[in-house]
Each structure stands twice: as structure tokens, then as C-alpha cells.
């Protein structure tokens, strides 16, 4: 394990030295420079600090034999008896990495009356699916689910465990990782494997403003969670080769202090600020009825509909759906503006969007200055065709 050693004698100005650390982890206590609990091992002090004061000391590599484990295990998220598609995406990634190191791909499926579902997983390149099917697993409750995961990990000793970044996954993965006192890297956007089974994990931090490359060199299994739609799902194969194994659990392991009272549908009254995708209607929309095509497009993209100020002022859309300086500020993953010219009033409410697609017939419209993909076309021509294709 590496650590940072401070050579006090070389330190010049304590004030300057303390300022080095963006996390406030360097302190000056009675003239002595110390590193406190705020340290994140970013090593800025080593790289940027006065020469020789901070030294990174790598410990001797441990010589003890270290069992890297065997196999890549994917947690098959299955709530309401439906397999979450992130599972297939993870199976695809697992297969790709397993091929490189010659390991098997395992799946674990926990639930009630879900045996049939296990067969479906076999179409996505898994070698063996382990099914924990019991009434006690009907609803997601952390204790029995964690116990089932633990049971399988003890039995199979996988080198990697991949879990979808769903609500269940983000609750279950850290719980089990902690049980094995191993590392878990959340919301990875890239994964690759080295020949020695070390998993290279890339994830965003600071709200996506920086990326971190993380690894778990001396602990197994290596846990990672990955959000839906980050990786590509493999094509479904016709034939299957893998097998299904059922496991039971002793009753006491399935006890829980959680009692699920009921499941209800989530009402879709999201705030515009929380939307991941927004379709914006602009002044080029001529009649209120024409908003229907905007709604249809939004529906196909799971998006919310918003409008520019002139459109709100006509009363066709609720004032709460206005984007712009005098309305909402949004930062979705995708925004599609339909016939929006791009007044500064509007643009300042949305220009931090990850991907902006603008449809406007006027090539000189200022919206094209901020659009990543500018489509010079008439919304009445283009949008119905898009909707048609998305059906």
C-alpha cells in the first residue's frame, strides 16, 4: 500500500504548503505539516508541491499468494418478474472480458417464480445462471438478497461482480462488497480487463467534471456498477449453450426486518429540471393542435415537452414548461428544439445540455450556434417523418 511521506525539513512556507491541497487535507499543526483525514490520495501535493517535501512511497509488493478468483458474475436485475435490460448489456461486457482471460460468465437471478426468466439470459452468452427462486425473494429486501449474493460468491469465488446501476443494484452491490471487505466502483463508464484479472474502471466524479481511473489491485471480487445504456447489449442468439442451476437458502438467511406493503406505479409528474430528454416547441409551431406532433416525438423518446416564451404566452403550454431566463434552467442529456430561433433569453436556460439537436428552417438562426447537430429543415416536414420511423 502506498503512502505519502512528508519531509518536514524541506518544507518552506507552511501557509503555501497548506494551500496546495484542494481538499484541505494538509494542515500545519504547531509548525508541522500533517496530512489529515481529508486526503483523497490525488497526489497533487507530490506533483505540484515544493520539491521533495511530499514523497509517494510504494510499499513492497506483497509476496503472499493471492487468489484472483475465477469467473465474471453478473447480477440479473429482475423486478416485477421482468429482466432489466441493463443485465444484457452487462452480460455482453462480461463475455468480452471473460474471453480475454479465459474465465466463465455467470449470472445470478434472485426472485420469485422467475425460473422461466433464467432461460432468457442464456441467449446472451452466459455460461451458467444461478437461480435463487423463493417466495421470500418476491420483493426486493436487502437482507435476503444480500445473503443470496453472498452465498453464491462464497460458492463460485468470481474475480469480478458486475451489477446494473439500478435502484436495486446500487443498494445491493455496496452491501455485498462491504460484506467481503472489497472495493466497489460505482457508475463505471468504461471497463477493461488485464491479463492478471485486474479490472480497469473509469468513472466520473465531481458531477462529471472529472474522470477517475480506478482499480482494485489486492481484493477480490472486484465489484463495479454500471448504469443502463452505457454498454451495448449483444445480439440475442438463437441457440443456447449455458446451463441453469438452482440454489436454495436456509429459511433463517431469508429473514428480514423489512416488510414490503405494496408496489405502486410511479406517477410521471417530473419537474422539467429533472428530465433527461426534453423536446422544445418554438415559435414555428403555428397552431395549438400542431403541438401533437411534438408530444408524439417526446413520447417516443421518453421526453418531456417544453416551450419558448412566445409559445407560453399564447397559452398553449403551461408557464411551468417555459425554458429560459424567465422560466426554467435545464441541463438534460438531450434536448431537441423544434422551430426555436434561439433568443438569448432561451439559450441561457439550456446551453449546458450535453447534446443539443436543433431543427429550424432558417440556416442563420442563432440556435445553430449552440446546437451540436443543427438540422436545417421545416419541422412540419421533418418531425412527422421521424415519428413515423420511430413507431
Amino acid at each position, binding site marked *: 500500500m502506498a503512502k505519502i511521506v512528508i519531509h518536514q525539513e524541506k518544507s518552506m512556507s507552511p501557509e503555501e504548503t497548506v494551500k496546495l491541497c484542494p481538499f484541505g487535507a494538509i494542515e500545519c499543526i504547531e509548525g508541522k505539516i500533517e496530512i489529515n483525514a481529508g486526503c483523497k490520495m490525488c497526489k497533487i501535493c507530490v506533483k505540484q508541491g515544493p520539491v521533495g517535501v511530499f514523497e509517494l512511497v510504494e510499499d513492497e509488493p506483497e509476496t503472499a499468494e493471492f487468489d484472483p478468483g475465477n469467473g465474471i458474475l453478473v447480477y440479473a436485475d429482475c423486478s416485477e418478474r421482468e429482466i432489466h435490460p441493463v443485465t444484457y448489456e452487462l452480460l455482453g461486457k462480461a463475455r468480452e472480458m471473460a474471453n480475454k482471460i479465459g474465465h466463465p460468465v455467470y449470472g445470478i437471478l434472485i426472485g420469485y417464480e422467475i425460473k422461466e426468466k433464467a432461460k432468457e439470459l442464456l441467449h446472451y452468452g452466459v455460461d451458467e445462471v444461478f437461480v435463487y427462486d423463493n417466495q421470500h425473494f418476491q420483493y426486493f429486501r436487502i437482507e435476503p438478497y444480500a445473503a443470496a449474493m453472498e452465498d453464491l460468491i462464497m460458492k463460485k469465488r468470481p474475480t469480478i461482480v458486475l451489477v446494473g446501476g439500478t435502484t436495486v443494484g446500487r443498494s445491493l452491490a455496496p452491501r455485498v462488497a462491504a460484506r467481503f471487505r472489497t472495493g466497489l466502483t460505482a457508475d463505471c463508464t468504461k471497463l477493461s480487463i488485464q491479463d492478471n484479472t485486474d479490472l480497469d474502471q473509469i468513472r466520473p466524479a465531481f458531477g462529471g467534471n472529472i474522470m477517475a481511473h480506478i482499480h482494485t489491485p489486492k481484493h477480490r471480487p472486484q465489484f463495479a456498477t454500471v448504469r443502463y445504456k452505457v454498454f451495448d447489449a449483444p445480439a440475442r442468439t438463437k441457440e443456447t449453450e449455458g446451463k441453469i442451476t438452482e440454489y436454495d437458502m436456509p429459511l433463517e438467511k431469508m429473514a428480514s426486518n423489512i416488510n414490503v406493503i405494496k408496489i405502486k406505479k410511479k406517477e410521471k409528474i417530473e419537474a422539467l429540471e429533472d428530465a433527461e430528454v426534453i423536446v422544445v416547441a418554438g415559435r414555428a409551431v403555428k397552431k395549438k393542435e400542431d403541438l401533437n406532433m411534438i408530444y408524439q416525438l417526446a413520447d417516443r423518446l421518453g421526453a418531456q415537452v417544453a416551450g419558448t416564451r412566445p409559445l407560453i404566452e399564447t397559452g398553449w403550454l403551461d408557464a411551468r414548461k417555459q425554458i429560459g*431566463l*424567465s422560466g426554467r434552467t435545464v441541463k438534460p442529456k438531450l434536448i431537441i428544439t423544434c422551430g426555436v430561433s434561439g433568443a438569448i433569453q432561451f439559450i441561457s436556460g439550456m446551453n449546458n445540455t450535453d447534446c443539443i439537436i436543433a431543427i429550424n428552417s432558417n440556416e442563420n438562426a442563432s440556435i445553430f450556434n449552440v446546437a451540436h447537430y443543427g438540422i436545417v429543415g421545416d419541422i412540419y416536414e421533418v418531425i412527422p417523418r421521424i415519428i413515423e420511423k420511430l413507431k
Partner: protein
Amino acid sequence: MTYKKIDERDLAFLRSVCGEDKVFFGEEEINDDFSHDELGGVHQYPEVLVEVIETSQVSQIMKYAFNNNIPVTPRGQGTGLVGASVAIYGGIMINMSKMNRILELDEDNLTLTVEPGVLLMEISKFVEEHDLFYPPDPGEKSATIAGNINTNAGGMRAVKYGVTRDYVRGLEVVLPNGDILQLGGKIVKNSSGYSIKDLIVGSEGTLGIVTKAILKLLPLPKKTISLLIPFPNLEMAIETVPIIIKAKIIPTAIEYIVKDVILVSEEFLGKKFPDHSADAYLLLTFDGNSTEEIERLYDKVARICLDQEALDVLISNTQERQDSIWKARGAFLEAIKASTTEMDECDVVVPRNKIAEFVKFGDRLQTECHIRIRGFGHAGDGNLHMYILRDELNQAEWEEKLEEVFRHLYQRAKELGGKVSGEHGIGFAKKLYLQESDGEVNTLLMQSIKRAFDPMNILNPGKIC
């Protein structure tokens, strides 16, 4: 007043000056936005709309209009509230918003030279990147700087930093006959005769067209903290303001907020305000260079407020806390607007120690006149924004009621030693009230000034006086 109507020859001239695609003629070609301003009470299309990008074009157009007796109305972003930028006599409207370059940041003289169409928010963003600060802070951040100069807007920080006029060092102005005039400069002091520059500031585009401005900057305060102070009622809140001022601690802003307006903005934004314990609030802002410095400043004020029986003093010291308050504060106007069918506003300013009285008067008017009035305002500088809401009234009732309410409000403001407008201006909508309030001599003097600048009365005619 009779003016020459726009004909083909005029269009040809304008096209030769501005370019074919920068001239828009008739209601077919002119976007509806250019027929009204933000409040939309006054409606009239110009006959022709032109876009300019340099001073010489403005000068040529003015010279031509002067010689041909054509009215000219300059316009920025159209965010005004009193119809000052509506071409009520038709003629030519010059859209100044494309003259929007930041020309020079002079860090030796701490000045920023800008074209008229630069937006307020662009200025603040630009100078803040250089650790500098342009203090005037009107609520409408997408207004142009020249629009601000022409109304002499002040905004929330006026308590500590003053208003736009205090930050205009120099101006380049095109006079109604087309002459280009340089006023003031990067100089700090100036005793060289009448200050024409200060006359232009607040003239609502009636004396000359601003084509360049030199603004004064300050070093940027590094940190801002707000205090949200709940009081049992508005009276107690507002009566605390003079006591704070007397204590010789000047916050950057002192706003008052009433519960009704908070509820409307919560509904509008779909977001809860951080406190609901009271009927009325003061919102104070302090700026400085460190949290500690500001904490020392507000400590005394906080204690004063508690002595005045404030329910508490709540501290907003992080971005998300500031957002939870200021997003709501920023949405008040739009939220009130969305809660009714139509509204008009009154922007009176009264001495600070009369605010409570005036607000109570407004409250009484609601019952006496059977109409809803909502308001919020700058308690620190006595500038109140009151909105009269039309709701279900028909046109005739609405006009009648509006006039009645306005007369009462302006009459009362006058009695208290106040003025018709604190920062929105007079424009077209408030002309009569200004005349009633300030009297004949004042009106005659203003008319003479107008004649001295614009003998043909072609520049933004029909406004102010």
C-alpha cells in the same frame, strides 16, 4: 403630430445603409415582438424595422429621418415595462441589439467599453471572469445595457452601490440630426459644464441614441451571503429597515417579500421556498471578500432584527441555498404574471421610512377598489413594484379600474414625498402620472430640453413629456 409615411424611396435608402436583409417592412415581415414591450400594454408596429451594426449607420438613418420628418424609435431587447420602445407613431424602428460587442476592458482605469446591445448578463459574466464587478443589478438580466442606461435602472444592489447613472463614465450618442457626440470618457471627475451625459442617462431614447458606453467597474467581492428574515407581519419587517440603515451597516440589497407572492412563485416554479413560518420577510444580502468578513457584518444586523422581534434570521451561505431563495425571487414577476390574465405595474419610489405606509395603503386599495394587487420590492431603496391584476375584468372595466388604482397610488406616493418611477421609467404609459405628480413647470422644462436636442421631434416622439 404628422410625420411622413415610409415609401419605396425610404426603403431603398435604408436598404442601402443597412443591407437588403436587415430591413423589414410591414406587419408581414416584422416580428410581432417589435410591436410591444415586455408588459404588452401598448401596441403599435413600426412601419419599418432595421438592424444596425455600427454607429455610422445610426447616424445616416437619423440624418435622413431628420431631413424627411420620419419618427425613429430605438429598441434593445424590448424588456421595458412602460412602452418606451414602442413606435407609437410608426416610422422607423432601429433594432440596436446586434451592436453587441464588448469593445475594451481597461484594467488600468477599471472601465469597460461596450456597444449598446450587450446584455446585462453578458457584462456581469465577462467582468467577473476578470475578478471585476459591474454592480447595477436589475431583475431582467437579458436587458441590453443601453436599455438600462436609458431607464437608469438600479436593481437590487442600489442600496449599497447606487444606480446605473453612477456607473456610466462616458457615452457615444447619435443626436436626432445625425451628429455623433462623445460625452464624458474614462475620466473619474468632470466639472466641464452641464453634464449632458447624465441627461442622456434615463432619457428613454428621446434625446439621443446611445451607440457606445464606457462603464465604471469595481473589484469583485468574492463572496455573497443572504439573510432571510421572517417577521410576524409586513409592518414589523419594513419598520426594521430604517433601524438597520441607522446602524450604519449597508447591505448590498434589502428586499421585502410577502407570503402571497412566495406561494405564487412556489406554484409557478414547482419548488418549495425554504421557509413558510411567516407572513412577511426581509431578504438582506451582504458581500465581501471572505465568509468571516461578511459574518462580522451581518452579526450586528441579525441581532437588530431579533431585537425587533423577527421570528428568526436564516442564513443562506451556499449556492444551493442562494438558489432556493433567489430563483424564487427572480421568478416573482413571471409568477404573478402567470397567475392572472393581464397586469400592469406601478414602480413608485418613496423615502425608505415611508415604505411601510405605502405598502399598507396598497393593501387597503385592494379591498376599496375590489382588485388584486401583488407586490414586492426594494425595501432598502424605497422602490416598490406593485402589480395590478386584471383577472376576470372585461376590457372597459379593466381600463377604468386601472386608472383609478394608478391615480390613488401615485397621489399617495406624491404625498409621501415619492416619485412616479424608481427604475422602469415613464415611457408612454406613465406620462400623465408624471405630469400630475411633478407639475407643469417641470413638464415645460423637460419639453424645452427635448426641443433643444430634437427640434423636429422625430426621436422616439410621444414619450416622457
